[in-house]
């Protein structure tokens, strides 16, 4: 029930920032009530409630209108607020009349009378930073998917906790900053994103496309000349040039958050901007926001990459990833392409009774680019977008075994330098606009460990696991999870000190249009071949000093940068080698402490 508490009820209420008597509203609504307000106010819904608001005089109980967008604007700056209670907030200024709900609820809400104002908007945020062409194309797919997922899950259009993790609710009628509205009906959603590119092409396309309103133009950093596929240009030239701007945009974006949990950075390794400027960003983030996790999705160059200098760019970027990222999810185009081919095969074979779904969600993103001509990378980018959505689902939606983002690092990174996680998404058909009758649930688990379902060229089954996370969405129970772990364990090798190295989570909300899905994250020595191959390609170029002058002519770049980068990678590879050496050794229990009783 709605309740109110007058006066300085809780610790330090006066921090809640307005000049009138601060009052806290605690509680939650458990039934549908219409609040008709005589004056326009700022209103909001509390978690778990379904409240509809009317704005004007009692005669006009317009249920469903957004509650008073006039009135007190914006929220006090919330940085440094110690939220000390779990209130959800706010309400009303002026007379309140309540309709609907049970008599009990009405009387409770009505005793809630006038002149109640308050506060508090606790939110957990995730901020997405897309750098470079690849990063922005993927980013765009991501936002499209995120919007559609939230639209499907949140049918009432109330700006709730789940949406707030990725989007701000903004009243665009107000000029200037378009201050954030606390909660209530969704006015206009702005993505918590920063888009960075040193060429205008991709970002412009996004801003002219259907998602243009989702991005705050102040959250863009662009240039025109591009980085010329040169890591040094991206990292040093543009890094220096745009450092202040980047910092400013990031601070601004963080200001709207009470609690910024994680930065997601999306970029590619082989080019210039994503690779160079993207990794420059990591250092900046580490200095400016040391407490916030940096989770990086990196697209590694495939064997037949058309950028000649991609090995240089990748190796130079790897060093930065080693040192400044908390967690890296490596992806490569070849694997994505293989997965798409597999899906196409499944669809076209017609054997499984597949039908094309009318309402697409996934591989063909309707929003991101020109509708009819599907660019070849669209389907592939959607896979990565799905990865990010599923990764954050347990943090955004409820479930019987939740998993926050900081738990990813805690459980999957046993040693700071070994933070590369191989990912797989199953079932594959959740990545397609097809309606395939669900196969056995257990098949989903089996597939997650197959080398054909990984997002990089890797074979986790035949290598050594340091740790593994299974993030399940949908109608799956703990017993299903346990049964499958028991079943698959014997065929997997775990390092001796982590024989039961499983982290599991259950999120109740499935991906749109499907009953369940699984995201598996593995810290496994199977990443090693990718790195070894990268090093080989690098050495082939470097031995001949090919194209080196493009880099050395940039101020601050010397040959030592290259040698340091390659030795950093070699050290990493060596770590994996040492772990692999323990693979066939028998697992022995170490002698325990002996105690004198």
């Amino acid at each position, binding site marked *: 029930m709605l309740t109110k508490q007058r006066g300085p009820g809780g610790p330090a209420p006066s921090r809640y920032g307005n000049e009138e008597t601060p009052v806290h509203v605690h509680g939650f609504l458990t039934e549908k009530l219409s609040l008709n307000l005589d004056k326009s106010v700022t209103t909001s819904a509390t978690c778990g409630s379904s409240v509809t608001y009317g704005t004007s005089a009692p005669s006009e109980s317009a249920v469903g209108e957004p509650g008073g967008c006039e009135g007190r604007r914006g929220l006090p700056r919330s940085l440094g607020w110690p939220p000390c209670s779990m209130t959800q907030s706010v309400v009303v200024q002026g007379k309140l009349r309540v309709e609907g709900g049970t008599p009990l609820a009405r009387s409770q809400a009505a005793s809630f009378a006038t002149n109640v104002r308050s506060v508090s908007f606790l939110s957990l945020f995730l901020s997405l930073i897309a750098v470079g062409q690849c990063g922005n194309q993927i980013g765009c797919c991501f936002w499209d998917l995120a919007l559609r997922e939230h639209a499907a899950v949140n049918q009432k259009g109330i700006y709730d906790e789940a949406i707030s993790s990725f989007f701000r609710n903004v009243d665009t009628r107000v000029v200037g900053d378009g201050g954030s509205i606390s909660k209530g009906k969704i006015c206009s959603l702005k993505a918590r994103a920063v888009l960075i590119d040193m060429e205008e092409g991709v970002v412009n396309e996004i801003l002219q496309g259907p998602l243009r309103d989702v991005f705050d133009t102040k959250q863009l950093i662009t240039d025109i000349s591009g980085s010329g596929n040169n890591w040094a240009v991206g990292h040093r030239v543009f890094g220096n040039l745009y450092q202040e701007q980047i910092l400013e945009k990031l601070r601004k974006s963080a200001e709207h958050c009470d609690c910024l949990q994680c930065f997601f950075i999306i970029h590619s390794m082989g080019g210039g901007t994503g690779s160079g400027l993207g990794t420059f960003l990591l250092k900046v983030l580490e200095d400016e926001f040391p407490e916030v996790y940096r989770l990086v999705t990196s697209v590694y160059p495939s064997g037949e990459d058309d950028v000649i200098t991609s090995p240089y760019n990748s190796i130079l970027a790897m060093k930065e990833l080693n040192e400044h990222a908390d967690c890296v999810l490596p992806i490569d185009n070849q694997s994505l392409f293989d997965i798409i081919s597999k899906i196409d095969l499944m669809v076209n074979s017609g054997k499984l009774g597949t039908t094309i779904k009318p309402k697409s969600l996934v591989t063909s993103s309707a929003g991101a680019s020109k509708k009819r001509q599907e660019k070849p990378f669209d389907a592939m980018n959607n896979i990565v977008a799905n990865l990010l959505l599923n990764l954050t689902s347990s943090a955004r939606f409820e479930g019987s075994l939740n998993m926050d983002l900081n738990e990813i690092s805690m459980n999957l990174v046993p*040693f700071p330098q070994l933070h590369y996680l191989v990912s797989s998404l199953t079932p594959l058909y959740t990545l397609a606009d097809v309606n395939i009758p669900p196969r056995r649930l257990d098949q989903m688990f089996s597939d997650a460990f197959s080398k054909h379902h990984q997002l990089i060229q890797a074979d986790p089954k035949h290598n050594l696991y340091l740790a593994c996370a299974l993030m399940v969405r949908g109608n799956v129970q*703990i*017993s299903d999870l346990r049964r499958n772990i028991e079943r698959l364990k014997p065929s997997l090798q775990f390092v001796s*000190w982590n*024989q039961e190295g499983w982290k599991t989570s259950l999120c109740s909300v499935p991906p749109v249009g499907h009953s369940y899905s699984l995201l598996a994250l593995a810290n496994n020595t199977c990443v090693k071949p990718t790195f070894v191959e990268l090093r080989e390609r690098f050495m082939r170029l470097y031995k001949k000093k090919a194209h080196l002058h493009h880099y050395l002519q940039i101020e601050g770049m010397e040959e030592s940068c290259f040698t340091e980068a390659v030795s950093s990678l070699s050290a990493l590879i060596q770590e994996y080698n040492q772990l692999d050496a323990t693979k066939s050794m028998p697992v022995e229990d170490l002698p325990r402490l002996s105690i004198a*009783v």
Partner: protein
Amino acid sequence: MSIVTLQLGQCGNQIGFEVFDALFSDSHCPQRLCSKRENEAYQASCKERFFSEEENGVPIARAVLVDMEPKVINQTLLKAAQSGRWKYGQHSGFCQKQGSGNNWAYGYSVHGPRHEEPILNLIQKEAEKCDSLSGFFIIMSMAGGTGSGLGAFVTQNLQDQYSSSLKMNQIIWPYGTGEVIVQNYNSILTLSHLYRSSDALLVHENDAVHKICAKLMNIKHISFSDINQVLAHQLGSVFQPTYSAEGSFHYRRNPLGIDWQVRPPLSGLPTLGKTSLNKELHFNTSIANLLILRGKDVHSADLGGFKDPALYTSWLAPDNAFNVWKTQRAFSKYEKSAALVSNSQFLVKPLDVIVGKAWNMFASKAYIHQYTKFGIEEEDFLDSFTLLEQVVASYRNL
């Protein structure tokens, strides 16, 4: 006398809800197998322990809900309120936005001190509502970050602030095969700290309860909800009122008032060599057993088997170690039901396994950097290992 329940973390809150629900359902169960007056006394006693009065008659659970992220608490509060039969207090929840990341050190060293004041204030408010406080019942898991780390911190604080009240921690033992990778670290840190500050550790293993659901109840797709309900049923049957003495018809006032202190014989414990030769570990030796009988024919039950000296360690007489509580009032529509709370060697093996796994991981220093980041050093780990090895050894030598 009342019990204040502290629900910590996702596990604690989910279970806590089921416990109160089970207590309430039983209290208002139509089939009672006893007289009306009897039933009213039972209900009143249950109410006094677990619920407080509200203006419009909806009982409010004597509980404080704490979590470092909001989703679970919100859901728990909602579920209770929606049931319409009982609910949680409006101001009894405390949560933050960012969880503890499965990190015991974060829960203990960061969240603990940071939120000490508001949490203890909430507890105090709840305690003050009681006419007479028996003690605290703290529900937490060992595997995660909030329940385990923050739980250990709060229990320590309660030790200081409420030294005369009993503190009983309900600990959930995680599944052997991973829920959380660092669960063994979190477990040993939790247990070693609780050993110093808690009065009693009541343990439920997820694996064991899971088996009950699968084998005894034949549930096909077991969910956490099923598991929590079984747990709640067990706890309910322990905590609901029983007669205070043989033949008396008053309900005992102090629900946690078992004599939890086990006193070793004045002559000291027997030397090691002898006892370990005689007793093989396949026979579970107890220090104390509490049997709770509810329903029909409780007074004529034959309890001889429980007094067999072979069940108990050599330096204890069965009469000192065995207690039985009874009531004619049936529990939750079961004509006859029995519950056994046992302080015995039963948990030695699971504990030993956890300590072993944690030790192996510790030897390779895996994940240690995540803990040292927040002030838990290797020495703290070693202290924990030492303490728990001592516990294992002590129990083994019964």
